């Protein structure tokens, strides 16, 4: 896999010259390439039969396609480069310091952030602080000309060797890591002269062990020097988990995550780059929820000890059934802080973003769910939920289904809790995805075909699961009957089924419902309030007439005509709500119902009724939330 580093190299350069102090793994780079991935699964696949086999092609083919070929090739080509050549290459000129440096040699890409550090002279602390200020500037030469003569500068370059195919974002991550290591070392140097001590130690070991084989020397260095030990563990961690937490000089803790690697732990073969995560996190809204992917114990290694308190505060309030907003208020944190913490956890592959679990959420099997008889998830599932078969459970989600639909009030309350747990488990393993309902304002403009009732059917949300069964049977014979069926005030029967259960017990899912504005107990009160359309009172005042006219001004002529044909447009309340939502831009396929409900403080039933009344000008459909989907659907 091109995510793993081939090697980490430490190069040191001062007035006495350059030196490669430490390198891990110890074999020459050519050999590392071979050893690095012993479990090479992919057979040497034959290229497109019409393509000419050329070594030049290999570098261009992005990633996992031909790892074996690329590695075989790399072996021969990099073996010639001795440590002194590498050291000369990475002892860069001062102009190149403190910025990204990338060098590609044949099929190895070297990335680093050369850092210039002023050496702490053993004399006074006074001069040390003086140098601290100047070393920040790029080429620390001009301003403090007086001190320059005495000032010792050294260059430290922690270089990561990667496969040439490593993508831009991976390279960027490694650069960031090198930069942070450089900064940490700079800090430790200025605090206690750590770097001077460590580099001197390493150099001395090299000098002493000159007749020994190089590998032995490096081993010895790793035993003696804590810096070398740290670099070694960093390299190993990057190869195994992509998450690292290293303490330098038993003082400074450096935590780092390589998302491209870390996210593979939860979903094999997925390549999540930081840009995708950022895109997902930018779409974070207060109504979103968080689902942890790991145990509480595993959370702490992703934050430096100083940040742990706030994380615990959030984790204490953690509940996948409530929104980030509620979590923030329960944890007594501001929503911005919660966003930051959640973003951090998501970046570190410790959590994922969901819509808080509730009865009305509609789930369906994710298109790329790794569901097959040989999957390890099958066993994992039956261990977690004794006696349950993953396939049996998940096949219920072949059709979009909500927890509410899968449980009936007649079952024991515990059943719903277990089901919620199973859904959470399946979400954690990315086996399910949630479907949301979106609305698009789109009046029909073609009357020339004659809108017969049978050809004018809007698909209804919520009720669709009930419908599908009947649809199959009824459709061919009487298409018209469906219209009458779906035009009933719709979520009522469904809600009526569910309500007793919600009130009965405090199961996990019902907690959420109380918080959510969605299908709450109050829904039947609201019905009577806004259902006034039907009793068309003939005493429509002039005022109302005027108001309706004003409201309709926001639409263009064609749209206005289409809306006027709908009876509900004569009701001021209904029309003003429609106009309000329209003007807010909610009917452009960009916002799902839950979002509209959240931001406009509407109940699900209220919204569904409105959408039903104006169904002739609205198109309603189900699809996944693109913000959440983008993280894991990178096909």
């Amino acid at each position, binding site marked *: 896999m091109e995510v793993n580093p081939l090697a980490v190299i430490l190069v040191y350069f001062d007035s006495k010259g350059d030196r490669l102090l430490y390198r891990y793994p110890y074999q020459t780079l050519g050999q590392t390439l071979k050893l690095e991935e012993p479990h090479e699964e992919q057979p040497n696949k034959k290229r497109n039969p019409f393509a000419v086999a050329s070594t030049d092609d290999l570098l261009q083919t992005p990633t996992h396609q031909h790892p074996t070929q690329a590695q075989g090739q790399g072996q021969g080509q990099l073996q010639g480069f001795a440590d002194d050549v590498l050291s000369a290459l990475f002892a860069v000129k001062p102009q190149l310091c403190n910025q990204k440096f990338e060098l590609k040699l044949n099929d190895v890409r070297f990335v680093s952030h050369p850092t210039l550090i002023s050496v702490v002279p053993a004399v006074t602390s006074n001069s040390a602080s003086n140098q601290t200020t100047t070393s920040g500037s790029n080429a620390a030469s001009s301003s403090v000309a007086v001190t320059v003569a005495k000032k010792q500068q050294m260059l430290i370059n922690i270089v990561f060797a990667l496969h040439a195919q490593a993508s831009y974002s991976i390279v960027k991550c490694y650069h960031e890591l090198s930069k942070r290591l450089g900064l940490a070392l700079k800090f430790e140097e200025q605090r206690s002269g750590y770097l001077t001590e460590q580099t001197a130690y390493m150099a001395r070991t090299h000098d002493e062990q000159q007749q020994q084989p190089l590998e032995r020397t490096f081993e010895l260095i790793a035993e003696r020097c804590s810096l070398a030990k740290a670099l070694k563990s960093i390299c190993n961690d990057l190869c195994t988990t992509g998450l690292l937490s290293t303490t330098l000089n038993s003082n400074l803790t450096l935590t780092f995550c390589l998302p491209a690697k870390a996210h593979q732990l939860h979903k094999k073969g997925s390549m999540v780059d930081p840009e995708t995560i950022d895109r997902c996190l930018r779409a974070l809204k207060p109504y979103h929820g968080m689902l942890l992917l790991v145990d509480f114990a595993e959370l702490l290694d992703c934050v430096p000890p100083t940040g742990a308190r706030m994380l615990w505060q959030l984790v204490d309030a953690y509940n996948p059934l409530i929104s980030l907003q509620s979590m923030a208020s329960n944890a007594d944190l501001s929503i911005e802080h919660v966003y930051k913490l959640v973003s951090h956890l998501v970046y570190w592959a410790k959590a994922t973003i969901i819509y808080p679990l509730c009865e009305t959420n509609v789930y369906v099997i994710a298109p790329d769910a790794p569901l097959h008889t040989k999957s390890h998830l099958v066993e994992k599932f039956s261990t977690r939920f004794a006696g349950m078969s993953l396939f049996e459970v998940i096949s219920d989600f072949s059709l979009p289904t909500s927890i509410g639909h899968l449980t009936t009030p007649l079952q024991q309350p515990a059943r719903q809790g277990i089901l919620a747990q199973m859904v959470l488990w399946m979400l954690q393993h990315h086996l399910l995805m949630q479907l949301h309902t979106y609305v698009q304002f789109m009046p029909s403009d073609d009357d020339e075909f004659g809108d017969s009732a049978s050809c004018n059917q809007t698909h209804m949300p919520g009720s669709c699961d009930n419908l599908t069964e009947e649809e199959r049977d009824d459709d*061919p014979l009487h298409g018209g009957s469906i219209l009458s069926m779906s035009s009933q005030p719709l979520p009522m029967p469904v809600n009526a089924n569910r309500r007793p259960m919600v009130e009965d017990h405090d199961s996990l899912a019902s907690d959420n419902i109380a918080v959510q504005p969605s299908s709450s107990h109050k829904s039947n009160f609201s019905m009577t309030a806004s259902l006034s359309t039907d009793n068309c009172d003939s005493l429509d005042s002039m005022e109302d007439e005027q108001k309706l006219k004003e409201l309709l001004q926001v639409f263009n002529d064609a749209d206005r005509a289409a809306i006027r044909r709908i009876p509900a447009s004569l009701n001021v309340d209904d029309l003003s709500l429609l106009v309000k939502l329209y003007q807010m831009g909610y009917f452009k396929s960009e916002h799902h119902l839950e979002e509209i409900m959240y931001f406009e403080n509407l109940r699900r039933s209220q919204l569904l009724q409105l959408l039903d009344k104006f169904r002739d000008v609205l198109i309603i*459909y189900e699809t996944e939330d693109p913000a959440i989907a983008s993280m894991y659907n990178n096909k």
Partner: protein
Amino acid sequence: MHSHANEGATGHGHGHGHGHGHSHTGHGGSTEGKIRCIFLSEFHATAGCKISCQVPDNYISKEVFDAINVYIIPKQHLQRCILTVNAMDVKIVGYPVGIQDQQKYARNAFLFNLCFVCDSRARSVQYEPVVKKLSEYLIMMEEESCFLSREDDKVRLQNIFQTVLRDLNERKVATIVEGDNTIYLKIVMHKPDPPSVKDHMVPLLLANLRDTPLENWDLTTQQILPYINGINHVARIAAEADVETDLVKSCIQNLVYYGVVQLLPILKYSNVYMTQNLKHLIQSAALSNACRKYVALQPDKLLPSVQRIFQFYASMTHGVTLRAICQRLCPQHHNIDERKMVIFGLQHKFIRCIHKYPVFTGSVPSGRQKMYTGLISFDEICCKTGLSPCTIEKDIEKDTNVTVIWK
């Protein structure tokens, strides 16, 4: 440092000279970038490392060059390696060369490097073979006639660079005649192998390639091309064109590689589709107009409205078959060809097909049950066994050990 350093982001999309609509998206934030500059650097006997010829002039400033010249004229170990250095906001692809000759050269050797410069964010792998090839030409010309080391000759080199820079950026191909030599250069983009083609897949020809004369294709392609219509699946094409199936598969895979053909799931009225990113259809007027034209049953009549089309797509969801949608919405009354509608949706990824996977949950599978692993879709099983979907369906329904998963 350079005002133009960040233009890389705008360079995206220039790599599609072939116009097959195959978008080669930048890999994780990097972009396909143009060549910004070509220069020749040499090691001068007295002046040391210097740029002796550069197009456009002074793109690489002296400060930048001084900082990185060790990577342009490196030590002997690194000669004849493709060496790319990315620092100070420029990315320089070079192929350092040393020609040893004690008679000709003051220092017994002539060291030079021909470099292409890109934006620091741009992908540059595709230029590596070109840099190497052009260097080899220059080595040859140098050995024959001291083309590079003669002081006065930089004007001709300048002209070569100008042509190469312009032609490669515009057409990805450059041919230069210089004295007795003709230099041929071409940028070849490599994409990963397309996935292997299976019997049940349906190839769809993209764009206006039908207009290309048949003789331009290879023999197998000529034979199968008439049967590629977005409806026939691979096995059927093989049968109708009387070509061996494996040959058809590799031929189609080849066409997929070049972005001429796209593979779709087989179209059945019992299929279930699901929308994704449907909003793009309305947000782009060009796309919705293209869609209206494409899906029209009779193109000479009034084109179907966007609203109808959108409604049709919007009604696609899990559990609703194409048949049910057609019965409900009567697309043909609205001058819509539902098959074209599905093809257009799949092609532009507004919809995806929800496949059906039988999974055997018993202990020991026997016979056909061995295929029910969850990895082989229903269509594929039908194709492999040669049985009708109906038979398989009944077979699965009877078997209590088989669960069906739609995804």
